[in-house]
């Protein structure tokens, strides 16, 4: 589904990612872990199409398409979803209006009829139940005045509505208490399907107690220096990042 080959990316001339390779297949859950500044969020931004990052080398192929050729909105319509580490507050734009517009722009792109108001409301009710989001949240402006937990739940709610093929969750666990973490993880697990994939970016192993990854990758200095199964996360928790740093062959 997603194939990243020898990717290098920079911001303002500073290289953040260098020579990164990653393969994600349908039905898989990947966890990308790494210390602060290792390039985790940059990787998420490059996949989602944030223009502030420059891709200097390599390729990203998604469902057979050259992803780097597509603007951010087209990537979203093709089924890529980025769960933001810091969801943006947009006063005056209601979540309902925002999501209805997003869904209908996607449907238009796919050659489908737009959802009617009633159809959208039904869909929204269904997804609200699915991810345990409070009713009143959706009539409010996007993220405005939301708590940290509400913002992250809102991300998962949007993900549920947009039904992405590939979801990238950028530090969705940061700033969450354990209850909010469970709600978010439950949402992600419910949305898992054999034909979609999830990339969970996280600093801590904690989230992986609730979302079980098929693969764990350690990102350091802009490259993946170690990959393994879910046990790698536990090992990391125990031994710390210094352990992999030492293990990593120089210049790998």
């Amino acid at each position, binding site marked *: 589904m997603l194939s990243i080959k020898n990717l290098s990316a920079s911001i303002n001339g500073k290289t953040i990612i260098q020579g990164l390779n990653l393969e994600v297949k349908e039905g898989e859950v990947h966890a990308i872990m790494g210390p602060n500044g290792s390039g985790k969020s940059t990787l998420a931004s490059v996949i989602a199409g944030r223009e502030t990052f420059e891709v200097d080398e390599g390729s990203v192929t998604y469902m057979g398409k050259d992803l780097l050729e597509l603007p951010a909105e087209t990537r979203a319509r093709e089924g890529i979803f980025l769960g933001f580490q810091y969801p943006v507050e947009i*006063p005056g734009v209601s979540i309902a209006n925002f999501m209805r517009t997003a869904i209908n722009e996607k449907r238009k792109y796919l050659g489908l009829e737009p959802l009617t108001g009633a159809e959208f409301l039904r869909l929204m009710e269904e997804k609200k139940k699915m991810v345990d989001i409070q009713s009143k949240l959706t009539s409010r402006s996007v993220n405005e005045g939301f708590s940290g937990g509400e913002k992250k739940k809102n991300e998962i709610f949007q993900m549920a509505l947009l039904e992405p093929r590939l979801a990238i969750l950028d530090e969705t666990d940061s700033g969450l208490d354990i209850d909010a973490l469970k709600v978010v993880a439950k949402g992600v697990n419910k949305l898992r399907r054999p034909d979609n994939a999830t990339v969970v970016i996280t600093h801590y192993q904690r989230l992986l107690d609730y979302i079980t990854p098929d693969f764990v990758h350690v990102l350091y200095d802009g490259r993946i220096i170690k990959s393994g199964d879910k046990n790698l996360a536990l090992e990391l928790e125990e031994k710390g990042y210094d352990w992999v740093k030492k293990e990593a062959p120089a210049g790998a």
Partner: protein
Amino acid sequence: MDTTYSSLEKDRLIELFHREKDSITELATPMVNRIRQHALSRFEKNGFPTKQLENWRFTDLTPLLNTEFRFDFSNKSRSMDIEKIFTCDVYDLDTFSITLLNGWFVYKSAPLTKLDNGTVIGSLAKAMEVYPELIDQYFGQAANTHQYELAALNTAFVQDGLFIHVPDGVTLNKPIQLINIVNADHPVFLQPRHLIIAGKGSKITLVHCDHSLTHNVSFTNTLTEVFAEESAVVDHYKIQNKGRNSALITNTFIRQKKSSTVYSNMITLNGGFTKNILDVSLPEPDCRSEHFGLYLVDSNQHVDNQVYIDHIAPDNYSNQLFKGILDDEAKAVFSGKVMVRRHAQHTIAHQNNKNILLTDEAKANTQPHLEIYADDVKCSHGATVGQLDPEAMFYLRSRGLCERTARQMMMIAFAGEVVQKISIEALQERIQHLVEKRLRGELSICDQCMLHCNSKEPTAFNIDMSKI
């Protein structure tokens, strides 16, 4: 009689006044004519405002006065059937609708209407004849001709406009809608004058629409006095959609008595040159005074909002929020001043002006002022000039919205903060619709016009999305 001037200077206007004195003063009460005389000498002393004045630093009238204007000192429009040339689609609420054509009251049956509840609505000129005691009690009591040069000019030449008197305790269920239309085949100089009296405990909603149905040059210097007596509630909406060649100056003077509430909302959708002057005086306690404004301007349009709120008595609340989106080379000026006098303890006063510039050439000059002489008050002011938040843009796009849709959504949301202050739901919806239409580039000044002149391109607002 029509009189034409190649350039408007103070002396020529004074001369014009003396020549036309008989027709100008004919319908007014002796008291009004005394106030007029006083205002004339004020204008004679001060003349037109210049850029040397603090409130006119960024707004230059001089080029606008350099035109051959015509003055109409007698009402030629009263026999017209206004619906033949204009129907308002601003909103479909049931309203009591009144039209002024080129500054003169247009009526089908009678120049003054008295409703069953005692409310009088109609021509100011006629009210001077029928209700001289009301006129003499209120006329000129709010308009400050000492400090405001153009208020002096308007008062000196006052002839007609809208008169409303709502008796004590009366709630008007229907909003009153005033439509000011400029339609002439030659440049005109107009000075309509309105007097709104809301009696004790009364309630009134006034929707004031300014339109031009002509691409000709026009200069309107209008003045409205609003008196909110004890516990009265006044909602005053202004919707301005004027041609590129029009200059519109509105002078609004509001006097609030004890426990009264006044909301005003100024929505400028189009206008070559617009300056809105608002002066609010709070000489008695327990009042609420809230004033909102929204301006959406492009090409080389110029809009200036000047607000002065005078907290004289204690325990009053005032709030100002003015927001604008500027495209192309448009210019906006905001100067707001809140005066909190020594005895005005427990004043709460807020003031905010926010601007979004879509180009490097668009300009916003914003000057919020607070002048506080009391020591137990809560006051705030702020101003921002910026662009649409790029982080928010990316957030919207990352969900599949194209750039254009994302920008429109954010601009509509930005404007929405002001539109949401409109308390009548149906009116709010209509104005929201107009604003959205405007931001999508679909609203032109020709929209509501039946003339179908087709001689000029419709002047639609068209924010160029690629510029941000």
